[in-house]
């Protein structure tokens, strides 16, 4: 679910509203939280210690995302279950922030959320999939991981490498997911779903 303001229409007082959107999401346990300028709740470090190769902190810092928001931009909260998403949406409706709220999911899921909360859909942007020279694209599992960042910042090569590392037992799916998530620049990467994809990829070897 993401909140966005329209330039020149409702952006002047948007920053506290967007921050409120992020803050309100935290009690509903989002699997990712982020903004389009700083990324999600797992971020790269400028001063990584070599000892982190053995004990890297994989804990997402949701509060840091809220604190770090410093300009009106698109903010996102990612949920891995419909109940949490619906409960959060009810809260967002009550808050009446005045910024645009969008749900990015299956059409059925979005309709169910809107129905449950009692909001008629305003507009819908159908995604019709990839066309053209699709032979340049990798296999389905790699694509499922690399397209989780809607801006294409998770490379096919890294996604494939993480699938291979999980298959080889060099990393757990939980660890592999954190590497991928750090490259997503807007925080819409879904670590929960990515973990499922990696586990499926590992089992597919049997």
């Amino acid at each position, binding site marked *: 679910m*993401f909140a*966005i*303001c*329209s*330039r*020149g*229409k*409702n952006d*002047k*007082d948007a920053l506290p509203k967007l921050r409120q959107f992020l803050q309100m999401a935290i009690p509903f346990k989002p699997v990712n939280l982020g903004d389009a*300028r700083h*990324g999600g709740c797992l971020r790269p*470090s*400028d*001063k*990584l210690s*070599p000892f*982190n190769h053995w004990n890297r902190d994989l804990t997402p810092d949701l509060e840091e995302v809220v604190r770090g928001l410093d300009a009106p931009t698109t903010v996102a909260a990612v949920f891995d279950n419909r109940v949490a998403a619906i409960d959060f*949406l009810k809260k967002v409706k009550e808050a*009446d922030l*005045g*910024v*645009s*709220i*969008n*749900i*990015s*999911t299956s*059409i059925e899921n*979005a*309709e169910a959320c*809107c129905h449950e909360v009692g909001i*008629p*859909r305003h*507009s*819908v*942007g*159908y*995604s*019709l*999939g*990839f*066309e*053209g*020279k699709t032979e*340049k*694209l990798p296999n389905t599992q790699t694509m499922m991981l*690399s*397209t989780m960042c809607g*801006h*294409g*910042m998770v*490379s096919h090569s*890294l996604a494939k*490498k993480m699938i291979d590392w999980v298959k080889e037992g*060099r990393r757990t799916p939980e660890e592999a997911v954190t*590497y991928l998530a750090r*490259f997503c*620049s*807007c925080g819409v990467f879904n670590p929960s779903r990515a973990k499922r994809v990696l586990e499926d990829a590992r089992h597919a070897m049997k």
Partner: protein
Amino acid sequence: MKINPDKCVACGNCTYVCPMGAIYIDPAIKRATIDRDECVECYACYNGLSKENLNPTMVRTMRKVFQLMRLRFDPEPDVCPTNAFEPDELVWPRVVRRAFSDPRVPHESTGIEGRGTEEVKTNDVSGRVKEGEVGFTIEFGRPGVGARFHEIERMSMKLAAAGVDFEKKNPVTTLMTDQKTGRIREDILNEKVMSAILEIKTTIGKTEEIIRLVKEVEAEIDTVVALGVGVRCDANGDENVVAPILEKLGYGLHRAKTNIGLGRITNPDAIEAARKEAAGAAK
């Protein structure tokens, strides 16, 4: 982007994280090297890799020792151990690459990060796509293929010839020299970008014609295209007009961005402009 050869230790981590596959270890110099023609200046390497700031000589020595012993250190895959990436001072026309590829940089033309478009994501506030209209987003290059502007121009010129309106608040539109012909400025035609989106609007009646036209051009260009179709729902939140057309054309409608209509105009000057517009329409 460039890689400082005095710092690079050729660990190879960056070769995997580049969405364009533009980084490789050059065997002649034993350093990571960027294919500048393929690099789209997305900064995934610079922004996404964590940095360790280790001493390059020490790391190279350790790697040589390990290599001699046929041992492999198993480092974190998202780390540049010596912080070897250094952003270039980008000048025109190369700066266009970053504008369309690094989603953290707001597009100058629209002030929006990502791909610089609002589409129907703010339709409840902008009123961009009204009932009876269809907004198309035609995205080139993503994921992981990239596109050059001469490919995008082939599409924009065909669409212009079909009489569509290009969205004015769109980064590609602002790079057109003539919106009536869809021609894009010549000095950027060979620039490669991660992703660029053409946004057009037309009537629902032209939906099928536009999709067939897009498919024709897709066959002629050397990249991938992601087509999006944005429509206004009715008062009950239903959309039963465009969906049947898309299904008739063979599209399975599974995923969408759904704008739930909670936004409103709050900027004082925009409220005043909307009030004047409504008064003008009433007259």
